């Protein structure tokens, strides 16, 4: 073909696209592909992960996190900061006093979600977190991170159902174990009392009760 034919062919392609953008319906070849964001949104994928959030059951005091610090240790960029809560007597409680996530550092990898043994931290779908101030506004504290289990069900129905089933199973097991332990303790109470403890200082620290399966 003559010189310039390739250019003309290329121009035909763009012209076709030009007209197709006016006459074709969305989804067809050559139709517009743009999603006009604030008004139109793409459907959310269930596995889509953004920044993490903390789950609570029913009311916010009842959060699942036990401040075990595993997520903070496993977090690759170390963006999680946890301080355990203590009661008046200085006894550690199974809940965090401070749970901060620095969203400027977080890289949305989802390892905290995987590592958490208590199903307490999950990746959120919320991505519109832009703020005018970059340090304080993007350092999320416990209250900002807390979201209900119902919300979790809303954004990730399949995962949430699976997690609930898992938790229920664990709880049933625990209850069964407790019942068994109780029965055992009752049986033990009927038996003669144990010998008095040895001198203070030599006692081994109390072991957590092993679940009797």
């Amino acid at each position, binding site marked *: 073909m003559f*010189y*310039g*034919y*390739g*250019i003309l*062919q*290329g121009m*035909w*392609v*763009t012209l076709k696209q030009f007209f197709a953008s006016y006459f074709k319906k969305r989804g067809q*070849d050559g139709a517009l*592909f743009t999603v006009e964001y604030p008004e139109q949104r*793409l459907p959310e*994928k269930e*596995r*889509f*992960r953004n920044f993490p959030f903390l789950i609570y059951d029913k009311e916010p005091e009842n959060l699942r996190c036990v401040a075990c610090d*595993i997520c903070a*240790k*496993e*977090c*690759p960029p170390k963006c999680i900061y946890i301080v355990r809560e203590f009661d008046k007597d200085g006894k550690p409680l199974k809940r965090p006093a401070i749970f901060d996530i620095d969203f400027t550092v977080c*890289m*949305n*990898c*989802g*390892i905290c979600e*995987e*590592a958490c*043994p208590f199903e307490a931290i999950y*990746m959120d779908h919320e991505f519109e977190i832009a703020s005018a101030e970059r340090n304080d506004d993007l350092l999320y504290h416990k209250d900002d991170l807390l979201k209900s289990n119902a919300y979790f069900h809303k954004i990730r129905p399949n995962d949430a159902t699976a997690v609930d089933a898992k938790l229920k199973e664990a709880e049933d097991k625990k209850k069964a174990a407790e019942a068994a332990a109780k029965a055992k303790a009752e049986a033990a109470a009927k038996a003669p009392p144990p010998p008095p403890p040895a001198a203070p200082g030599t006692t081994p620290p109390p072991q957590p009760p092993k679940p009797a399966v």
Partner: protein
Amino acid sequence: MNKGEISPKNEVQHDGQTLEINVGPQHPSTHGVFRMNMVLDGETVVSLKPVMGYLHRNHEQIAENMSYAASMPYTDRLDYFNSMSNNFGWSLAVEKLAAIEVPERAQYIRVIMAELTRIVNHVSVIGFLLNDLGAFFTPVLYAFREREKILDLFEEVSGARMMCNYFRFGGIKYDVPQSVLERIREIVDKFPKFLDEFETLLTKNEILCMRCQNVGVLPAELAVNASITGPMLRASGVNYDIRKVDKYSIYDRFNFKVPLGKKGDVYDRYYVRVLEIRESLKILDQALKEIKPGEIMNKKMVPFLKSPRNFKPPVGEAYGRVEAPKGELGFYVVSDGTPQPWRYHVRAPSFINLTILEDLCLGHKLADAIVILGSVDIVLGEVDH
């Protein structure tokens, strides 16, 4: 200078006839924060020094201070266009180190994801190359239109569009639902049509031919000496594809060919990529036919998903490499039996392919230097890892 010899980095005398310019670090077409210290005589490049490191972020040192699994998301950030390939390389290295078997279905999914990544990368790179040539974004946006469809699938499968963090040692994180496999099939079936249209727009375009042919010729000897890999090497006519040489994962099961160029100029680099996309589609086609339901994680490795810090590979060393879209991506890892690797090294293909830049550009025009840089296909996240 003998053919195939790396040129000495000659110092240029400034006698008032030459013009020294800094292309980058802030420049529209350096693909990131990369700087080229160029000396021009008129518009002809007399000397060119690549200056790297503006994006250096201590990738290797960071990885040596954390558990093996925790550097998986960091490998996403190496070459952020194809995180799946990077994940693949890193998991291959660790699986070699700890002798972990990967279940069949996981292998297939890995190959499917890696080939989809290759398509994404090559299509976008061709678009960017045309941008460097001066086309006003049209090829890029056509490429991105197709890329978007694939990224949507990545998001559905792994949860993220670019930073997938999808592979795990001994398998993959999530299973791929059947509906997604069907959509991949749909993309694979439709892609040749798009490629044909794309090629009509570009391949025979006289301006593109004029700008690309006989520009930045890389002789095969020089390419081998400088340890160039990937489409750049194959465009020079060297038959070296790690998928064929190493037969890692299950690549020996697929029937595909390695396209080779003859001259090794920008046009060959462009067209070899187009042909590689077509070969990738063949692999995808076969993989989608053969994939069967089954396990996606090695049973032995499942507990380590919950506690990555407990994963302690035996003492030893391993080098895992994949044919990433940009070339040979290798991870060298030495274990001392602790949860952290004792040594972790990345053989980043863009970085090594970039070292040859001056030899390609000397004697060409300023505009050609930009095009050659585009055809090398760099991602600064990987160059300055």
